[in-house]
């Protein structure tokens, strides 16, 4: 009943120790997501094979392209375009990182061990983002170099030192990380794999496609404020008029749209995870 003992039992472990413990347990769980390595490997295959196939396709067909088509050809975007396919894998990984824990019931153990739920979700997101960002940035560079090698003359190609290129190639990794985080927070919000995947892919892929079917400029302006179309601008080299007026925001404002979606999902996830039952 001595005073120091009482304070110790009330405050528990120090903040630093608690963070380190949570980080370690979140790392073990992320590492042991059963489909994790397969998904990350599929991401690599899609990105690299896609870069090679698409750039080779353009190189072979370069002679048949119209002058306008050649002028609006974006060599950086085309070498990174397979991101549109790879985002399915990264987004799904983000979802199952969380929903796997909910469906197996492990989440109850997690929240009993660490009642600071916001801390659990925050560290989960940080660890996920760090791994995915490192891997996807590496792949983004690899896809860029592979694509530029395939786009030999006379097809248009660029060097990594050209203005704006480095931003775009780094942007590929950033975009995929943002998609993964959007999936992760959607998983926290919906707690079920199927529902979360449907919601994520609905926002990411179906909504832009649906708006694209509608004629008129209003739907085009709206489409630019979706995470997919906005975020993709960061790995475009050409913006605005050269691209048929489709992408007008520019790399960083476009990515900011994407980041705002992720931030909104994160805010909702942090509020709800503390209020709801596991």
């Amino acid at each position, binding site marked *: 009943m001595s005073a120091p003992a009482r304070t110790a039992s009330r405050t528990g472990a120090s903040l630093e120790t608690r963070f380190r413990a949570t980080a370690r347990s979140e790392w073990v769980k992320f590492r042991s997501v059963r489909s994790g390595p397969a998904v990350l490997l599929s991401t690599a295959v899609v990105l690299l094979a896609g870069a090679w196939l698409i750039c080779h396709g353009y190189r*072979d067909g370069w002679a048949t392209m119209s002058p306008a088509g050649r002028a609006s050809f974006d060599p950086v975007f085309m070498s990174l375009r397979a991101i549109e396919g790879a985002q399915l894998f990264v987004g799904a990984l983000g979802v199952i990182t969380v929903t796997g824990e909910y469906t197996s019931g492990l989440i109850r153990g997690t929240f009993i061990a660490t009642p600071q739920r916001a801390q659990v979700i925050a560290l989960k997101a940080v660890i996920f983002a760090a791994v995915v960002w490192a891997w996807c940035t590496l792949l983004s560079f690899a896809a860029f170099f592979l694509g530029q090698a395939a786009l030999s003359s006379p097809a248009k190609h660029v060097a990594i030192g050209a203005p704006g290129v480095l931003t775009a190639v780094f942007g590929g990794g950033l975009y995929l990380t943002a998609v993964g985080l959007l999936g992760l927070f959607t998983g926290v919000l919906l707690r079920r794999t199927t529902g979360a995947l449907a919601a994520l892919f609905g926002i990411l892929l179906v909504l832009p496609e649906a708006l694209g*079917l509608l004629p*008129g400029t209003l739907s085009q302006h709206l489409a630019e404020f979706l995470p997919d179309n906005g975020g993709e601008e960061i790995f475009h080299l050409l913006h605005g008029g050269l691209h048929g007026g489709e992408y007008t925001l520019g790399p960083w404002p476009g990515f900011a749209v994407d980041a705002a979606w992720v931030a909104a999902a994160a805010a909702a996830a942090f509020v709800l995870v503390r209020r709801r039952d596991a």
Partner: protein
Amino acid sequence: MSETLPVTTASPGRPAGPPARLRARAALSAEWIKLRSLRSMLVTPALAAVFCIGLGSAVCSNYVHSWPAASAATKAAFDPLDTNLNFLVIGVLFFGVLGALVVTNEYGHGLIAATLAATPQRGLILAAKTALLTLFALVLSTVIISAVFLSGEGILAGGHLPHVTLAGPGVPGRVLGAICYLTAASLIGLFIGVIARSGAVAMTSVLGVFLVLGTLLDNLPHSDVWRHTVPYVPSNLGDALWLSHPGTSSLASPAVAAAGLAAWVFVLGAAAACSLRLRDA
């Protein structure tokens, strides 16, 4: 042995089960119960209907509004049925996912272990699932396509735009093609689900096959390699069934597309049957 026990038509030393007809009927009714008690069999069709009919009508009424300001080239290129049915680019995703969920939900809940124990003839299970899903998807797609056709063409007619009726030349074939495409998509989804055994993998694959693959490949320059490969991707074969074919079309002809799509369904079905028989639950 077979002389003394004429009942034993199966392999020697194993008692014969019930006759095949009864077994098939039992498998069918078991699959039917599972199909109609799945919550996603209510939610997904309802979402599909609302989304498809809404989008199909929205696209048509949008054209009515923008028609006075449209250029002569836009007006010349306008095809009422293409515009009316282009929601299919997205609608097909609902059917693919629906097919996948029929089987992946069973894996997700662990029910598949009981199913396989009750009916060790795994091929029969897949056949029963395929038959019932075909029927279900045919009915659902017929309802959705009819509703979109009636509302969309009605909106176009009301706006005094070019429109078609079911009696128009080539119209019944393309409407039927759309119904077949959606049904085939649900079967492809089912077979992907059997091979994937997980809802996440199956849904991702369905979206990849029907949406992303086309987005990535369609706009590449149409070189010789392109002309011999890309039109035979499932989504492009399906689109060839309902789109009009203008002179510059790079799509396969409807007859080739129908055969190609059937070939995809058949090959994936065979792969699904093999993987169901060879692998653990």
